């Protein structure tokens, strides 16, 4: 009797062919992108999205053509930070054009489509039990976004990943193998421990880890114009990957994110200088 692998095709459902066709469209869509970098952590609340946006700004200021894909579909924040919450998506001759920040960074974020008062929801044949299919659905959504939007000829596409060490690995599995990872932590043992797990998990695959950025590395006090400690850490759980720099916390940066003010406005601050240094080391690591 024939076995599964003895039979060519799938009898007409075409499911495997359709999945392969989407993969082909994704590859075509990203053909003009020189570098793909996913910004992740594993830990939530460490400032992945903020760092993604302002690292993009620092790189843009150096003349690079940069785009951001906000892959956190359930908690999108790039639309607000980029000032494209009310963006218009216009169909081009072949693909959909992307909205841009005032400094020219192309941004896709579900925050441009779904108001902050609403949650991403999917129509489902199965009522409840969404844990059985939801992740698959979200990755097919990511695939369609990669295939349908006009990424064009650019130097860098940054993916702003959702939190969760397991999600970080799922993105590594799904994205092009040439996608590198930049991890973000804060100076706490708890955060470093979680990020270390992400490093361990990513190390099992073929994607390169560029290094990590220590965010909220002290806070910038504008009154005394000095960086003061924010966390006390034993530093016993140092990460075994290169550190690409540190960025202090600055309430002004948070305000800029809320209002969608671009990086240029922060350039001559300790935060801006920290981000600029990260940008340089990031480019060196690429």
């Amino acid at each position, binding site marked *: 009797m024939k076995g*599964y692998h003895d039979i060519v095709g799938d*009898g007409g*459902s075409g499911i495997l062919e359709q999945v392969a066709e989407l993969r082909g469209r994704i590859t075509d869509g990203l053909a003009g992108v020189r570098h793909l970098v996913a910004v992740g952590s594993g830990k939530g609340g460490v400032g992945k999205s903020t760092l993604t946006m302002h690292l993009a700004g620092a790189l843009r200021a150096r003349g690079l053509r940069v785009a951001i894909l906000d892959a956190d579909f359930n908690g999108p924040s790039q639309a607000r930070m980029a000032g494209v919450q009310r963006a218009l998506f216009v169909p081009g001759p072949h693909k959909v054009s992307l909205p841009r920040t005032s400094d020219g960074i192309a941004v896709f974020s579900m925050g441009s*489509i779904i108001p902050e008062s609403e949650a991403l929801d999917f129509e489902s044949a199965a009522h409840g039990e969404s844990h059985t299919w939801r992740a698959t659905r979200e990755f097919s959504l990511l695939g369609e976004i990669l295939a349908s939007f006009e990424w064009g000829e650019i130097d860098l596409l940054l993916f702003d990943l959702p939190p969760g060490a397991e999600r970080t690995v799922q993105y590594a599995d799904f994205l092009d193998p040439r996608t590198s990872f930049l991890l973000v932590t804060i100076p706490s043992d708890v955060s470093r421990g979680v990020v270390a797990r992400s490093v361990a998990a990513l190390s099992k695959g073929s994607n390169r880890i560029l290094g990590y950025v220590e965010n909220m590395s002290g806070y910038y006090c504008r009154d005394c114009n000095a960086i003061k400690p924010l966390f006390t850490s034993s530093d016993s759980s140092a990460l075994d990957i290169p550190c690409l720099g540190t960025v202090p916390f600055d309430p002004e940066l948070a305000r800029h994110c809320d209002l969608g003010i671009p990086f240029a406005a922060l350039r001559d601050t300790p935060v801006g200088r920290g981000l600029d240094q990260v940008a340089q080391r990031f480019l060196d690591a690429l």
Partner: protein
Amino acid sequence: MKFLCVPCDTPMKLQTVAPPDRGSLSIVYACPECGYEMAMLTNAYETQAVQSLGVRIGPESDSTATAASGSTCPFSAMIPGTEDADRGQGAEPIPVRWTAAAEARLAKIPEFVRPMARTGIERFARDKGILEVDEQILDEARDFFGM
């Protein structure tokens, strides 16, 4: 998933996909040798698992396949916030026509951004005093919004 007619040792071929019934699909396969037919009946979780891949179930030319997957779009997803933004804002907006070429461009974009794109472009056209969207208006919109 593949199906084999054991007596004939021949792969079975998909014949029809019936419209979903309470989340269940009825997919009929037949043996091209002996004509024996069998139906695969999915439960809602199995249906959803396949739909979550963003695929159409059944032959492309089979009109029942569209009904089976619930949509012509890989996203039969319902994503809130894509409704016509002009709705519920008082007076009905002046209707705007779309040329076939402009509609064709719109049809290429993912379904979850289509209503939003249509509304925004029609508003852009109305603001310019134009009541027909053609490819030139689409290009102007791209330039206007800095894309």
